[in-house]
């Protein structure tokens, strides 16, 4: 691509660079400021995951893997959501996102960490001949429902699919990231155009790969179960979780005295609106899925929900209905909450907690499928805490390391003037 040719655009870049909010100490984390928290988080993560691995041999591999998967799919949802929002913001040319997009790019660039952690799951599943993905260890001839699905649910194709998802996501994420950092260096606005073109074909690719990823790793844990809404259900957590993490990160950076005048209450307001919208979207998706399966009452579908209406999981479902919908819905209705740094941060942290609990509700009952006896009880909660906290801490630790390394905004983004002057008029 050629260098920027036209003078009007160059003057715009110079005007943005001279803006008082674009001072170096405002858009760069002071070296060493985030070292301690990120190292601590990574240490907690390593300890947690190591403890999970050790306890899996002492107690129960199935339980350990399920707890680990709760954490892994939560952070994968956050990372995939980052990829999604980057593509959406490029596609719709969202001017206000000029100052917040870099943080979403960090989320999508956490995908290698997630893919590595998912690879561990794949290896464990294959090594133990199907731990949670029970179809791996079953002879298809024994179950008609597995027999008709064996063209899709077989180990070689499963591994191939996982590699395809990983390659597609890495192509999309690393290209968008490369365009963004190259633009930081050169100021070439054609890179934004390239990113937009890439997002246009990337969006359907992303939608299909995300849905099939959710089918493979989450829905197929019970190979009898099927729900056409499943991909969207997982996507709702992706879109919601990535906005929550971004909002939390931006609020923390604001409280450290960074990004003053760049990420204002107008930006937290807009991110809060997305948080509100996707809270409702998640509820809509989750309830419709449950409602239609409840009404049609087909055994191979209802079994999935029946397993979650016994053994104490029904209380978790009630907590999700109240905590994942009613509380954030009623609080986020208020404009002032979304425009207040601490208010937005608390809501974002709450939503992150609820997304973790949602994945607990999806994954953990699978441990007791068919056989409630003989599972770990006393040590169970240690495993859950170690694995979930471990994976989340590791992911957040690496995220902080990334954030500290790069400028906090894409400073040569052509949308910067609009983002700097962003206002909600209503």
């Amino acid at each position, binding site marked *: 691509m050629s260098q920027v040719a036209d003078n009007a655009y160059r003057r715009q870049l110079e005007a943005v660079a001279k803006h008082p909010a674009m001072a170096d100490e405002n858009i760069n984390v002071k070296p060493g400021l985030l070292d301690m928290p990120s190292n601590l988080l990574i240490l907690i993560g390593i300890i947690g995951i190591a403890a999970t691995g050790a306890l899996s041999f002492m107690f129960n591999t199935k339980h350990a893997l399920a707890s680990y998967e709760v954490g892994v799919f939560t952070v994968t949802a956050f990372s995939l959501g980052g990829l999604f929002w980057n593509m959406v913001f490029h596609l719709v040319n969202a001017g206000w996102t000029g100052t917040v997009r870099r943080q979403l790019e960090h989320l999508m660039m956490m995908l290698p960490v997630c893919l590595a952690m998912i690879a561990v799951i794949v290896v464990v599943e294959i090594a133990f001949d199907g731990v949670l993905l029970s179809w791996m260890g079953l002879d298809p001839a024994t179950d008609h429902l597995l027999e008709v699905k064996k063209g899709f649910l077989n180990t070689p194709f499963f591994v191939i699919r996982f590699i395809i998802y990983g390659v597609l996501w890495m192509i999309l994420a690393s290209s968008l990231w490369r365009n963004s950092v190259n633009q930081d260096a050169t100021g070439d606005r054609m890179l934004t155009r390239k990113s937009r073109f890439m997002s246009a074909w990337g969006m359907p690719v992303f939608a299909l790969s995300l849905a099939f990823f959710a089918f493979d790793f989450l829905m197929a844990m019970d190979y009898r179960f099927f729900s056409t809404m499943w991909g969207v259900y997982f996507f709702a957590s992706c879109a919601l979780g990535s906005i929550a993490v971004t909002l939390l990160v931006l609020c923390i950076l604001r409280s450290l005295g960074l990004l003053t005048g760049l990420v204002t209450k107008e930006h937290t307001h807009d991110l809060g609106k997305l948080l509100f919208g996707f809270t409702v979207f998640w509820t809509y998706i989750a309830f419709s899925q*449950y409602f239609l399966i409840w009404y049609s009452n087909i055994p191979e579908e209802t079994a999935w929900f029946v397993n979650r209406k016994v053994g104490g999981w029904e209380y978790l479902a009630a907590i999700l209905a109240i905590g994942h919908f009613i509380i954030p819905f009623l609080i986020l*209705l208020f404009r002032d909450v979304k425009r207040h740094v601490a208010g937005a941060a608390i809501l974002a942290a709450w939503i992150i907690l609820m997304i973790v609990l949602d994945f607990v509700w999806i994954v953990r009952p699978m441990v007791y499928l068919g056989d409630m006896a003989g599972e770990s009880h006393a040590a169970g909660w240690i495993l859950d805490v170690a694995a979930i906290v471990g994976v989340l801490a590791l992911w957040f630790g690496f995220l902080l390391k990334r954030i500290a390394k790069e400028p906090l905004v894409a400073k040569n983004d052509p949308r910067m003037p609009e983002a700097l002057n962003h206002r909600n008029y209503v």
Partner: protein
Amino acid sequence: MSVAEYFPMLKQFLPSGLQDPPPRFTGPNGKPVHGLVAQYSAVDPVCDAAEKVRDAGFTAWDLHSPFPIHGVEDVMGFKRTKLPYISAIVGLTGAGLGYLMQWWMSGNYEIVVQGKPPTAWEPYVPIIFEAGILLTAFATIGAMFAMNGLPRLHHPLFTHEAFLDSSDDKFFVYIEAKDEKFDMERTRTLLESTGADRIDVIEDE
């Protein structure tokens, strides 16, 4: 916005409490004064004038422009609308009524469908949702019209020939006579001090 202004044809039948207050000022043609309109030919003067009128404490006044002006809500001193609170309260009421209706109906006449338990909460949800949405929509539209005084077929300002330019290249500030702070002489002096191109008295028809 008085009831009489909404339904001028009903004026004579309304009780005295709902009638318009008697006119305080009489215009050059001997009719009651509806307001004073000042004309400007650029955005900056009209915004400066709006700030002066706002700071003078007027409430029944408006600014007319051929195109949207960014930031006009600040120079006019707009407050946030109360409409969302009306929508929320009525919406929750609607959802509650939707629940009560089903509770009463299935309590009085129990029908077992598909062997589902009659006490199941699941079928209630879509009805609760729909009832909530329905009442929210009605309340929002109705309250919006009640608060902004629309729809109305005519306004005395339309009798002012020069006001037609408000959809072309002129800007107007209009202060209504029903404002408590309105006074023919002092309001005219205020508008003159803002550098208006012309100031006209608008009379009732």
